[in-house]
């Protein structure tokens, strides 16, 4: 079933890609082939492949249960929030928060997670900012 869903999504993606290719604005500079032909070929390959696994799906993969799926979803959200917070909070604070969360969700006890999270953040800061001179995001406190 997963492969059928995947094939369906793939087919929609291929159609969407083909449609987007068809509305590419051609410029007056265009060569014989033009900017649309290659995307059409890609859309065709994608479409045929998708139809193949719609018709002939592989055995079902072991999907994790809802709890674990939510776990992965939350981790992704935390990472997105991290990306947004990085320029605001600065590297050290944002990273400590994100690393703490991930450490905790990977099975450390809460207090332990905070210590590991902060240590990770400060450790990376020391190595990459202070030793290697990389420019990391600066927050309101300059780090």
């Amino acid at each position, binding site marked *: 079933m997963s492969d059928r869903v995947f094939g369906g999504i793939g087919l929609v993606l291929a159609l969407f890609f083909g449609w987007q290719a068809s509305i590419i604005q051609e410029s007056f500079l265009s060569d014989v082939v033009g900017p649309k032909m290659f*995307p059409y070929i890609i859309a065709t390959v994608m479409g045929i492949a998708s139809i193949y696994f719609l018709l002939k799906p592989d055995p079902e993969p072991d999907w994790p249960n809802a709890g674990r799926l939510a776990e*992965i979803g939350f981790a992704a959200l935390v990472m997105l929030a991290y990306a947004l917070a990085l320029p605001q909070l600065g590297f050290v604070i944002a990273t400590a928060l994100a690393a703490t969360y991930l450490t905790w969700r990977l099975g450390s006890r809460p207090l332990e997670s905070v210590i590991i999270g902060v240590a990770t953040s400060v450790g990376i800061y020391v190595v990459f900012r202070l030793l290697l001179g990389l420019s990391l995001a600066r927050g309101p406190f300059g780090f």
Partner: protein
Amino acid sequence: MDLMSQLADGFAVALTWQNLALALMGCFLGTIMGALPGLGPSNGVAILIPLAFTLGLGATPSLILLTSVYYGAMYGGRISSILLNIPGDEPAMMTCLDGYPMAQQGRAGEALALSGVASFVGAFFATWGLVLLAPQLVKVALLFGPAEYFALFALAFATLGGISSTNQAKSAFAAALGLGLAMIGVDTQTGVPRFTFGEVHLYDGIDFLVAIVGLFALSEVFVFLEHRGTERDISRQPRMQIGRIVPSWSLIRSCIPTMGRTTILGFIAGVLPGAGASLGSFISYSMEKRIVDRDNTFGTGDPRGVAAPEAGNNAAAGGALVPMLALGVPGSGTTAVLLAVLLALNITPGPLLFTQNPDVVWGLIAALFIGNVMLLAMNIPMVGLFTRVLLVPPRILMPIVAMISFVGIYGISGSSFDLMVMVGFGVMGWVLRKLDVPLVPIILGTLLGNEMEVNFRRAVNIADGDYSVLISSPLTILLWSIAIIGFVLPILVGGVLRRRMRMAHDAEGAIED
């Protein structure tokens, strides 16, 4: 002896303090990445690429660092195979078969040392193979026109799924997905924006480093979250006594014929596009079993069963660099990632690389020789140190991996948008891995997409719109034929091969239970 003088020049490049230090660092980090289950050579290189860039290293030093990581990870993969019966990466799977039983008999140190020597032999002679074969391949590549290059790219896609995927439709889908991603941005030929949806961030296209780090490194973090507290949590595994670390000369001598044969076999498997190190170690082990295993000792802790796959997979790692450097077409997943480095450094791999940037090529090759010696020196006496890395639980390690990935990408672009795209790729990578869709063709597609299209359009434009030019020369017909065979063959034999690899590993595990 033109070759020798070029190699000597290469050594002059590689033997600077900075490059030696980078090679040493790369070997060390690579071995650690390889040893940790889950983090293979592709992840290792993927995590470190952005760092190499943000540190502002030049082309040669970056390549030296990253190929050292690659070779190091190939060495390191065996450590957890032998000590924990968990392969650090797929090519190390076959090393479990005899390595773990040896460890159970209290000969872990011997197995580790012997496999280190075998890795050295395989990688060292494969590097010689690279020196001898790559320039020859370059001569062939000089005959290539746009139509031939287009066919060659198609060949790379057709064979890259290879045995690493059982479902060729999924490989094809992955390749199309990667190529589609490469189309995002301004068309280089006519200057019109494509697939940007008016979003300014997308005009430059999607940076393939963002895609690589997301797909490989971040998806691994999600995999660990999914498997928290289960068998993948290596911190719960019992520890082995290492025992005597220096193998006796008689033990090494008894394995010399094995190492010789499997080095050659592994090298050939590496050069062939798509086959890569997994196949190298598998056929090496199978062949040796057939040739020398008269008393049925393979699978019960036979040292030759440790030497064979290790020499084979490290030779394949060297072999995979041949088409990558000479043709610009990677022979394996990790070399696809290395190709990204070259492209990102504005160096076009392929025949011109050897004439235009000889210092890069020969410096790199010299660094591989040096790296191998370093790895041998590191892996015999310091193996105890590397085994200690396995004690670091993933709950500490994986957040570090994730954060370093973010640091690397942010260091290059300073853009939150890129980080969010990277998280998107991470989630996508996790889903695709669950669905058994290979990630490497996606990467290769994003990398080669523009180049492939340019060659396609150039060929057809030269022929004034006649598409038959794509199959007009004998060379194109040859390349297309190989591509078709390469695509169809795994459908016929790939599943069988892969099943046998898994079965061999699982059967051995079953005895253990």
